[in-house]
């Protein structure tokens, strides 16, 4: 792929779309821009209406007009009404982390959220396997047919086109793939539990919430945002089948899931 020559004051943003939410990245650092072009290649978009994200040096912020801010290991995110700023970003991993955090904020009013989960597509439907680190997300992905994995680490669930769907993300774990900018209706969400047998278990709404909430990526202590998150997650729980999946870390778990 051709990499455009980038000038610090260029008016040409790098446009991407994640979860059907467009962003226009203004990255003055050429090295970082090249890394972003590679990392988010599959998520390149044409829309010129995306939320502008300006990468700036330094860490200073002007708190009076920000709607959300977050500091992360020397880098910071400031979200205002019509634009976001990423400050002090030195490498692509910081850019990626701030982009995830920004997405959690932007997604919420659009009936969506990010979830620590692997998503696998079978027969046009998305199977979402949720769990914290070590729960088996990458194992599920590795035991699924080649080309069927939408993500092995961070799933984006959002109500679009009249139903809950899983969207591909560029946020990957051990697979380190570039991801696919596609979305599929949810077949179900499965909370991963390692066990000596493969079986799916029906659980109550409260148990679902107990399993799901710790897996949601969320970075704000603001009450209204937390209320909105509860509302959105509960709305999904009402509409999407949810199960606890006991699995042995081998491919036979698919028999339990699809039976």
């Amino acid at each position, binding site marked *: 792929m051709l990499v455009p020559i980038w000038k610090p004051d260029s008016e040409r943003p790098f446009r991407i779309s994640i979860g059907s939410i467009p962003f226009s990245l203004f990255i003055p650092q050429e090295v970082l821009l090249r890394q972003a072009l590679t990392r988010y290649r599959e998520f390149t978009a044409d829309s010129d209406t995306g939320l502008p994200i300006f990468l700036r040096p330094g860490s200073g912020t002007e708190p009076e007009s920000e709607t959300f801010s977050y500091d992360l290991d020397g880098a910071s995110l400031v979200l205002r009404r019509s634009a976001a700023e990423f400050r002090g970003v030195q490498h692509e991993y910081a850019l990626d982390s701030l982009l995830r955090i920004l997405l959690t904020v932007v997604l919420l009013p659009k009936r969506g959220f990010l979830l620590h989960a692997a998503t696998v597509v079978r027969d046009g439907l998305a199977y979402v396997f949720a769990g914290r680190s070590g729960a088996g997300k990458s194992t599920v992905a590795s035991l699924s047919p080649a080309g069927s994995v939408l993500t092995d680490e961070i799933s984006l669930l959002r109500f679009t086109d009249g139903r809950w769907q899983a969207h591909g993300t560029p946020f990957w774990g051990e697979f380190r793939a570039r991801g696919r900018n596609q979305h599929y209706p949810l077949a179900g969400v499965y909370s991963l539990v390692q066990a000596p047998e493969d079986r799916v278990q029906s659980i109550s709404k409260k148990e679902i*919430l107990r399993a799901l909430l710790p897996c949601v990526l969320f970075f704000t202590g603001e009450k209204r945002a937390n209320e909105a*998150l*509860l509302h959105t997650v509960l709305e999904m729980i009402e509409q999407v089948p949810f199960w606890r999946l006991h699995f042995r870390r081998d491919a036979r778990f698919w028999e339990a899931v699809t039976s």
Partner: protein
Amino acid sequence: MNECPERNPKLAWREIDGEIVIISPEDSQVHELNETASLIWKYSDGIRSCKEIAAELAAEFDVSLEVARDDVAQLVKALEEKRLLFVAAAVEG
């Protein structure tokens, strides 16, 4: 029993199948209340006293007022310790 418990206004909460689930935004803790604690939570509006809440509890669960008062005293204390409720003395008059 004259104190008036009040929900911590910083908390996000929802009722699910008759029971309360609370998110504490400051530390991302999720708290789940049982049926009895959920009822106390709903009546903890800073206006009703523990005595009044106990009366509601006794009627709802068909237990004696004495048992209800003991339950309210214990649960309000536990919820206060978790900073889910604040307790203020009732205003006289």
